Every structure is written in C-alpha cells, then in structure tokens.
C-alpha cells in the first residue's frame, strides 16, 4: 500500500518498523491461564455460596425440602404427636395388645388394633 505517490512508503512496513520494539511480556500465556483459573475458582465459589444461601433461606420457609425437592403439596400439617385409633378415639388407658404389649399413642399400629373381646 503506497501512501506517497512515489511508492517508497508502505504503511505496513512503516508500522512494523515503528513498532518492532513493541513486544509483549514473556510468559504472557501463563499469566492469562493463571488469571483464568483464578476467575473460574471465584465463580464456582460464588455459585456454591449462592446455592447454599438459597437453600438455607428456602428450607425454613417451606419452599423446598431439605434435599432441594419441593415440598409435597398434599403433605399433612403435623401439629403434634397425637395418634388416634381407627375409630377416631384415643386408645383406652391400660389397653394391651395380644402380645401383651401396652398400647399407647406411640406403639399403635394396624397389627396391634386387635381389641380384646368384651368381657
């Protein structure tokens, strides 16, 4: 490419001549790769922190289960530990299962719902 009419000048050659002492620092690729790794580590740490914080806020609010799954929509609200017998009444005090085990609200199970014959 001639800048002057006499063709004694080429922009490319002139630029290369002017800038031939302009060289990047040695080991530039290594510097860039190290910077990339540092940036990526920070990004991963940031993402993990975000997930932990989101889960930490979401679980107490009931927005998600502890494993991250959404809570089951028909899951009953558990207000306490009272367990009722099949007819809805609480087991009579002192009632025993055929095995002899004392039936309480915590031991009641379908297998134990065999009531003794009425005396």
């Amino acid at each position, binding site marked *: 490419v001639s800048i002057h009419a006499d063709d004694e000048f080429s922009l490319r050659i002139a*630029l290369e001549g002017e800038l031939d002492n302009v060289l*990047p620092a040695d080991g530039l690729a290594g510097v860039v790769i190290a910077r990339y790794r540092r940036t990526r580590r920070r990004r991963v740490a940031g993402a993990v922190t975000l997930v932990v914080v989101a889960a930490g806020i979401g679980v107490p609010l009931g927005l998600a289960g502890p494993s991250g799954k959404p809570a089951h929509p028909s899951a009953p609200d558990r207000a306490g530990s009272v367990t009722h017998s099949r007819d809805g009444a609480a087991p009579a005090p002192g009632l025993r299962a055929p095995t002899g085990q004392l039936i309480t609200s915590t031991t009641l199970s379908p297998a134990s719902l065999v009531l003794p014959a009425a005396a």
Partner: protein
Amino acid sequence: VRRGNREAEFTEFVEAASPSLLRAALVLLESREDAEDALQLTLLRTYRRWDRAKEAPAAYARAVLVNACRERWRHRARHPETAGDMDELANVVSFAEAVDRRHVLVKVLRRLPDVQREVLVFRYLLDATVGETAAALGIAEGTVKSAASRGLEQLRMLLSAEEKRGRRVYPR
C-alpha cells in the same frame, strides 16, 4: 490431557499472535499500559471460549481486541477525571519521539477518526481481509473499503504536514 492440549494450543497461539495484537492495541489506544491491559483481556476472553475460538483464533482475538479497545474508550468517556493519563501518555510519546522520532506514524494514526483508524489497523497491521475486517468491526465491506481509502488519504495529508514540520516520518 485435554486441559494440557488446550493450554499448549493456547500458548502456541499467544506466542505467534500477541506481538501484532499488542501493536494494534497500541495504535488504537493511547498508551502501552492500556494496550497491555486490552491485550490481556483479549487473550483471557479468547481462552475462556477456546473450544470455539480455536477454529480461527486470530480472527476471534481480533474481534475481541477491538471490543476491548472500545470498552476502554467508553470508560474514558465516562470517567473524564482519568484524562490526566492521556497527558502523561502524550509525554511518553513525546519522549519516544525525542529518543528516536519513530512514533510519528502511530501518533498520526491516532489522530484519524476511530473507524478509519480501526480499518487501517485491521487491514495493514493485523493483515485482515476486507471481509474479516467488516465482520470484526460490525460494518459493511463497502464501508471498510471507503474508510481505508479515506484513512490513507488523511494519513498522507497528515504525514505531509509532519514532514513540513521537519519530522522524518519514514526511512528513505
């Protein structure tokens, strides 16, 4: 093994391409420091997308470089308080000129409008084709040709003026 290959390929590319990218950045920006920052940012972005960039890494890096330089211009426009750097850089260029009067051409190039300067740098310093230049700068090929023509004409006038002022611009 894959990471090792990736790093080896990238290192080879950097060794081959970084001198011309740095020179281009130096012409497009105002200082060596800015040019080195832009180059490092360019290489970082290229390495981040290396799987895609390695098909044509030079073209990819050129496009990233011009964006990095434009970001630097915009940053300067938003932060005029850092304009003091420009004065400092002008002194650096003056010092370089005083030493060997070799940076007159670069200084004259910096006086061209942005598009003309970018086109001349891409075409004659980075050896990009008209199509590659158009793609990297986001302009039409016809615009590249006209900007190159006008840029050369403008450069010719500015260099003539410099010569009249007694500066020897190019080796005889």
